[in-house]
């Protein structure tokens, strides 16, 4: 086999990594290199250094260490039965690329994942070597996200968590049955145990010793996971119910939803479809409602008969249209919890309403400069000088927000 150039390796191993949606680089410990002895900083909120024409942010150098893999997961471009070109980076090549990209201000850090080669332990220990060299030899203080291999030895996971800002393991599909069908070598119970293990280590690392010393922090930016949507037949209720389970059980920072997208040399087991981007978008909206707006799972998935979210309108609006009896709300007196349920109002605009109404009564025009979408909100609120009248209960309210129905073409 001829030796591949660095450019061709990078082409193969970034192409193989793009189906992982995660790109976050925020929420870790604050660091800088003002002492002149290292490279990099971390300031809480991450930075998107570029955007690809798919609208996704490029924050980290997202690559696979290798795309050789002994697993045969149908949805994955790197499965053993696929004929895509294969490549493998050396430890030094990954370290070099990361440092040189970082110095040119292209990236916030490294997101390293890998196919499984030989054994889970072998793969994980190579990934840990890369992180160790970045941190200890190059004094790199930027962001590192390592994908962990569920079956790897505990001491490798331990070291990975001390070197990296974030660890992640993908649950891949919404139900255990689907994982068994499409990823025969993966064990959902094993994946959950690995996530449980990360949560426990994080909690242990929070305790001070009797001398008051804090142990080094374990994966300070937390753990995340990804679910592929649209590859199996699970409905949105199943997807979101798995998410609430993961958030509450393992304190995940994020669950990423990735619309199943056609891959080069796809498997005959999976449908080749246009990726359900709108469904992915609605799932993210619902996920936000669950975490930041005080909604219960049943409230969101209970408003449609088939347990799937309405693709035409956002889930909060869908809920509000089914609960019109609670509206219109007076923005000058309604509670914070209820204001958060008004379609068009976000957490920030609600905060602004609360802080301003302490001083005076809000007029409709005031709301317009508070960041909310009044086009949506106006049907559900009253303010000084505004009442929606019959709008709230009008039969065509949904039609005002949903996209116009498409006329069927004869051809």
């Amino acid at each position, binding site marked *: 086999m001829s030796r591949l150039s660095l450019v061709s390796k990078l082409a193969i191993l970034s192409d193989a990594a793009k189906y992982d949606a995660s790109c976050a680089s925020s929420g870790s410990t604050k660091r800088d290199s003002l002492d002149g002895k290292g490279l990099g900083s971390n300031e809480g909120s991450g930075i998107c250094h*570029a955007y690809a024409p798919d609208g996704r942010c490029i924050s980290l150098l997202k690559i696979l260490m290798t795309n050789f893999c002994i697993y045969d997961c149908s949805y994955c471009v790197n499965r*053993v039965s696929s004929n895509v070109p294969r490549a493998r980076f050396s430890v030094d090549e990954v370290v070099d690329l990361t440092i040189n990209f970082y*110095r040119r201000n292209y990236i916030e850090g490294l997101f390293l994942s890998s196919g499984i080669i030989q054994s*889970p332990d072998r793969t994980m220990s190579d990934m840990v070597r890369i992180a160790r060299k970045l941190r200890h030899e190059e004094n790199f203080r930027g962001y590192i996200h390592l994908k962990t291999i569920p079956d790897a030895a505990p001491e490798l996971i331990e070291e990975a968590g001390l070197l990296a800002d974030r660890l992640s393991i993908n649950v891949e599909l919404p139900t255990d049955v689907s994982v068994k069908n499409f990823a025969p070598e993966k064990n959902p119970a094993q994946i959950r145990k690995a996530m449980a293990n990360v949560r426990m280590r994080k909690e242990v690392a929070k305790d001070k010793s009797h001398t008051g010393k804090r142990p080094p922090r374990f994966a300070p930016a937390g753990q995340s996971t990804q679910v592929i949507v649209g590859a199996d037949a699970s409905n949105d209720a199943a997807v979101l119910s798995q998410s609430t389970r993961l*958030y*509450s059980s393992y304190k995940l920072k994020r669950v990423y939803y990735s619309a199943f997208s056609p891959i080069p*040399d796809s498997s005959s087991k999976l449908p080749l479809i246009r990726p359900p981007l709108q469904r992915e978008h609605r799932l993210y909206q619902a996920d936000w409602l669950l975490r930041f707006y005080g909604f219960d799972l049943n409230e969101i998935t209970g408003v449609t008969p088939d347990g799937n979210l309405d693709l035409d309108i956002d889930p909060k609006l869908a809920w509000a249209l089914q609960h019109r009896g609670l509206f219109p709300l007076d923005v000058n007196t309604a509670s914070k919890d209820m204001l958060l349920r008004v379609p068009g109002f976000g957490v920030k605009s609600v905060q602004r309403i609360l802080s301003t109404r302490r001083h005076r009564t809000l007029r409709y025009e*005031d709301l317009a400069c508070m960041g909310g979408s009044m086009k949506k909100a106006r049907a559900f609120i009253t303010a000084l000088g505004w009442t929606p009248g019959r709008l709230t209960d009008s039969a065509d309210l949904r039609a005002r927000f949903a996209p116009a129905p498409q006329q069927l073409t004869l051809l």
Partner: protein
Amino acid sequence: MRHIALPKIGTAVAWRDAARALLGERVPPSDVIWGGDDTPPELFANAPAAPPDRSDITVPRSFVALANSVVWHSDPQRFARLYALLWRVQSAPWLMSDRGDAEVAKLRSLEKGVHRCQHKMKAFVRFREIGDPAAPRRSFAAWFEPTHHTVEPTAQFFCRRFGDMDWRILTPDVSAHFEKGVLRLEDGADAPDLPDDAHEELWVTYFRNIFNPARLKVAAMQSEMPKKYWKNMPEAVAIPELIATAPARARAMAEAAPTLPPAHAASAQAMQMRNVSEWTGSACAMRDALEGCTRCDLHKGATQAVPGSGPVDADLMIVGEQPGDQEDLAGRPFVGPAGQLFDQAAAHAGLTREALYLTNAVKHFKFTARGKRRIHQRPTRSEIDRCAWWLNAEIKQVAPKLIVAMGATAALATTGSGQAIMNRRGKIEDGLHGGKVLITLHPAYILRAQPAEVAQQAMRDFQADLALARRIISGDAVSPSESPAISG
């Protein structure tokens, strides 16, 4: 009428000093004309002399933060607007939290513009190496064209990030130079002729390949990365071609027929099978069987089944209700808060945990998810019954001299009676397995009991029950059959 011209470098401090002086002299906003350093110097006098010390002037902290951003905006009216608001805030301090006020809203939008410009500068500055890559301190340079005067407020970010290298960011407005750890701001520059950098080819390669042609969303890209920045970003040259070829690439992927697995697939899979047997080969068959248990629905939400732990020849078996949040994560019983309380009470009663076999009536954690928390739920009778299959297997294996059932669930599972626990605690009952069961409280009940006196009494009862258990198994106490406490 006052004329005040502010310098291009150090604008924030100069504006603050000038505004403080004017406010000290009670000069109303209508009497001040503000200019930047681009106004002809003969038109304006300089800023007022050193400000008089006016400690009676109070400025809300939120205004200071707002002003420190807005002074860098390119709007020529920014200084005047800020001073006008500062003047109003003196008599109406609540204005800063009034998001409906038109002038506050305008300044907030200027602030947002500056923040966005700063953010884009942090993101889109692209350095090229201009020195020797092997030098102990490498050097880099960038050409950037910001929308507002953002170099000065953003330079510190680059100092914090690139502390071990020399760098300069040249812009038409102000240029920042960082050498040997010292930052220097200078006047603007013309676009420099920077040397080629081999890493740009690698970066463009990465940009091309991380793009997924099946999810083209051009508008989403452009709203975050407007075209005005493209000319100084090496990766932008790839964008038109990526957009143009995306639909055809996506179609080609969809139309390509599935191929046969490559030759190495079989041997790689064989390697995989060897790994499987390594991971799951466990000595204890029951543990493995329990792991796969789906006898009731509780396995769907839990992380894992939590088997009992302890020596299989233990004299005393302790049965609790079900694993909690911590036990579910760890896979071991009694490691959470209730377990710690149990350890305390057991130590007090003279029992060592290592000599006990600890288990639960139900082996999976039952909970409801509320936001980021899991709230414990009591198992139903049918769940307890189904799980008794495992409990009975454990009892048979360990064959303890005595079982201590903690709480109503354990009592139900071991004796079959679901009667109230308070009247039964401290007494010995006949177990379904044919042996003796001592009923006591569950430590989680003691943790939750209110007020403190009730909790303390419960703890004393619990300790007394464990002490009785110890005496029974060591033969110090009257044997269970002769115990006066036996009911019925």
